Structure formats: C-alpha cells, structure tokens
C-alpha cells in the first residue's frame, strides 16, 4: 500500500472541500472496496478523508412525499433490515442480502456501495493493460476471458460490468442520489444518470466530480406490487452476479425491470416494460436489442430471458 495521510471531518461541506482541494485525495467510508484496491495499488490516494463522523448521514428518514431518504453512511445491513424497506421496497432488501457476506454488509455503506469498482479480472491485474485502471493502456478483456463481463453498452475501450446488487434495485425503484459539490451547493442525480457507460473514458464510473460527496439516496413513495430480486451466480452465496434481475410486478402483469451483471451500469430500458404482460422474451428482445456479447458471455442473453421468466412466475405466485 502506498503511504497516505488521514483526516476525519465533521461536515459534508468540509469533506467535499478537503477532497476537492487535493487531486490525490479520496473519501473513505466503510473502506471494504477502497482498502482492497489500495493494497493492490490499483487505488493510490495520497490523502484519505474519513467521513464516518459526519452528522445526519446515518439515518433513514421519511420524506415529505411519502418516500424514504437513506443517509450515505447507513450500512448495507441496517438498510436491508429497516422495517419500512422490507415492507415497501422489498426488492431493495432482497438485492442487498444477495450481495457480499455478513461481515462486508456490516461495514459497507449505501454511498460506498454505489461507488464500488468493477471486479473485471483485468482491472485487478496490474500486469495487464486496462483502460479503466490505466487510461490509454488498452483493454486486455476484449481478447481475453470475458465470461463475467458486459454484453451491452460496451465500447472498444472497456467491457467491464458494474458489480453491485443494491444499485440494480435502486434503478428499478427510480431512486435519486443527493450530493454536496465542492463549492458547497447540493445537487440531485436521477439514478439512471448516476453510473456511466464506458465510452471513451472507462476510468470514470459515474458522473460525480472530484470532491463531490454523496449525502443520501432518496426513494420515491412506494409503488406496491411484488418485489423480486433474482441473482444467478456460480456459487449459492458470496459471489458476483452473472445475471441478476430486479423487478416490481403489479397484479395486472405490468411492471418494471432492471438487469445486473450485464453492463457498466444497472441496465434498464423503460420502453421495453410495456411488453411485460407478453412475457420475458418479449421484454428482453427489446432490453438487449443492441447487445454485443463476446463468445464467452453470449450465454448471458438467454440466461437473462430465463431469469426474468422465473421472476415473472414467482411474482404470479
């Protein structure tokens, strides 16, 4: 691990200013992904700004319009266990408990979870080129072993996936991300616009500016329906998704669906959801119309259709 200086701050504005003023600084919350990457010297911050003491970021509160505001520092365990979340946003609890391990969920935070980096094996191997880790060095995954990697929204610079589960549920719930910018002003980012596609700049996972701090994730008022999260993976537990499906299905067969494990961001095509009553294949034909799988991961396309079919059957009961 490279040496770094460490600082604790008391307010979000102080945190944002501290990171914004130092190009080599990073925020530290739970640290479960950042410290792993620092040990491998994939992340090399010279200064860490620990945000754990900031008041007001560790609560889940009702909003004025009947939704929930989830503080950035709320742990994955606390969020999954919240009674309101389990009752009204079950897909979110389901997605969280499908990810990581008990130990990691206890430490990992809501904001940190959104900022976790890809688990592409070429990103993790400093001996190989990776445009995300070392911009301009090339992508070893394109001609490499790509079974786990993205099938849609890729570029000729990067075919990494966003690895998380929670974000897939937040996408289907139309969450918004609240931030404090380096100048102290706040902004609200619709969840679908938060994570980026790789394009020509795969080193940028999301739209945050350097020094912009996530303060909360907000859920709109509950929409009812059956909440399902189905994750297909190589082990029964403690493994990243090959394909995952987050869905909220209404009694009349209409609903929303987002997919994980297939793209550089949670993958949702709202226009395809009109086909939900016609069944899974009708939906995925539109959702994955522009897919460009590799020979190793083409299996994800029929797998996504079958996973959604399973979800629709489960929702019918």
């Amino acid at each position, binding site marked *: *691990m*490279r*040496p*770094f*200086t*460490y600082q*604790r701050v008391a307010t979000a504005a102080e945190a944002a200013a501290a990171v914004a003023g130092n190009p*080599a600084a990073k925020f*530290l919350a739970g*640290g*479960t992904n950042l*410290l*792993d990457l620092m*040990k491998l*010297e994939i992340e*090399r911050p*010279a*200064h*860490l700004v*620990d945000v*754990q003491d900031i008041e007001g970021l560790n609560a889940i509160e009702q909003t004025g319009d009947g939704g929930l505001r989830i503080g950035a520092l709320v742990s994955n*365990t606390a969020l*999954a*266990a919240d*009674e309101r979340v*389990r*009752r009204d946003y*079950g897909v979110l*609890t*389901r997605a969280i*408990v*499908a990810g*990581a*391990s*008990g*130990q*990691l969920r*206890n*430490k990992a935070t809501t904001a940190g979870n959104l900022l976790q980096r890809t688990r592409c094996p070429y990103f993790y191997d400093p001996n190989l080129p990776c445009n995300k880790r070392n911009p301009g060095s090339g992508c070893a995954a394109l001609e490499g072993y790509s079974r786990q990697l993205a099938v849609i929204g890729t570029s000729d610079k990067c075919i990494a996936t966003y690895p998380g589960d929670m974000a897939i549920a937040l996408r289907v719930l139309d969450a918004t991300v609240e931030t404090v910018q380096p100048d102290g002003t706040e902004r609200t980012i619709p969840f679908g616009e938060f994570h980026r596609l790789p394009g020509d700049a795969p080193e940028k996972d999301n739209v945050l500016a350097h020094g912009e701090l996530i303060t909360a994730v907000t859920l709109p008022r509950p929409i009812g329906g059956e909440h399902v999260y189905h994750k297909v993976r190589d*082990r*029964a*537990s*403690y493994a990243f998704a090959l394909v995952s499906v987050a869905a909220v299905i209404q009694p009349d067969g209409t609903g929303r669906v987002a997919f994980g494990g297939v793209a550089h961001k949670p993958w949702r095509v709202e226009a395809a959801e009109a086909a939900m009553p016609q069944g899974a294949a009708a939906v995925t034909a539109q959702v994955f119309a522009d897919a460009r799988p590799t020979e190793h991961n083409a299996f994800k396309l029929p797998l996504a259709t079958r996973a959604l079919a399973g979800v629709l059957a489960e929702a019918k009961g």
Partner: protein
Amino acid sequence: MAFNTTRRAMLAGSGAAVALTQAPGAHAQSTGAGGGTPPSSMPVSFTVNGTAAELELDTRVTLLDALREHLELTGTKKGCDHGQCGACTVMVNGTRINSCLSLAVQHQGDEITTIEGLGTPEDLHPMQAAFVKHDGYQCGYCTPGQICSAVATLAEIRAGIPSHVQGDITAAPVFNAAELRERMSGNICRCGAYSNIVEAITEVANSDLGAA
C-alpha cells in the same frame, strides 16, 4: 572452507536474522514503491477485549495488523487479507467485520472483541466448547474467524437481520441449516470442516435461541 559454515553463522550473515530480531510490528507493512507521500503515522486508541490500547501507527496499518503485530493478539488470523475468507473476523461495537479491510485509525474509540475476548482455555465460550466437542475444524486456521462469525450470526438472527434464503423478507428470521450456511458464507474453511461447523453452531443456537 565454505561447507563448514555453521547454520548459526549463515543466519547471522543473512537478512533473515535481522528480520527475526526486529521488534514485532517493525515490518508490519511494506512501504510500497518510492516517491510521493512519505509514510504518515497517527495516534489511535480503542478497547480490545475490555482493555484500553493506545498506539502510534502508520496510517496504512489495518485493524488486523494492529491486533496481530502491535498488540500481539495473534488469535485473529490473516488468510487472504482481501475480505474473501473471513479468517480475520472480529466484532467491533458488537458487529462482525473483516478486520483486514479496515484501517486501525478508523477505529478510534471503538470496542473490539477478538477470539481471545470470547473465552479462555480454562473458561471457554459456549461456541468455542461446541467447536471442540463437534470437531469443527481440521487445521484450525479459519477457526477463530468461524467462531467470532458464528457468535455474531446468532446475534444477527436474534436482532432480526434478514437473509438471502428467507422466504418472507418481512418476517423475523429463524434458525435452520440453510440460514446458517448463507449467513456463514463469508467464512471459508479450506479443510472443508463445514458439516461439523454446522453441528457445533446448531448446538449453541438450540440452547441460545431456544431460550431467547
């Protein structure tokens, strides 16, 4: 003649002897590649198994290395050092975490419980006694992490923390083998002692959760 050189002389002339005589912790972390920021150290104090600890640590020292290399509490094990195996599991303020994925300086003021704080050889914690009784290990390297995780798992079920294998996510979780396998999936046992681990935890759960 070179072949008459004694083992002691060989060691004395090699780097190995230097490392062996260094104080614990002096080489806990490599300094990494040169350039950039010089190493930075900070004071940190927390409680470990009820005893106050005050340390001056390089900011890079993990909670795991602080426990093992600086406080010489070597019951907590370093397996993968990347949060994948669970051997380093300890409880911080009553909650289990991977101590390898946490900086010591993040834990100012925290209360940490390690395997040494659960019980002693003369007075075992019920979970430790159950692992011995059911032979819940082979090599034993993952065992301290398994036991800390198991104790915390039962507390999480009591606290109503939901799990992936729960049927009704709004209901209170129950204890059964499927729940146990899911909730303990962050602790890997390379010897494959899982069936005996399940038996040991189940025995404690039946007396523990049954009485709750």
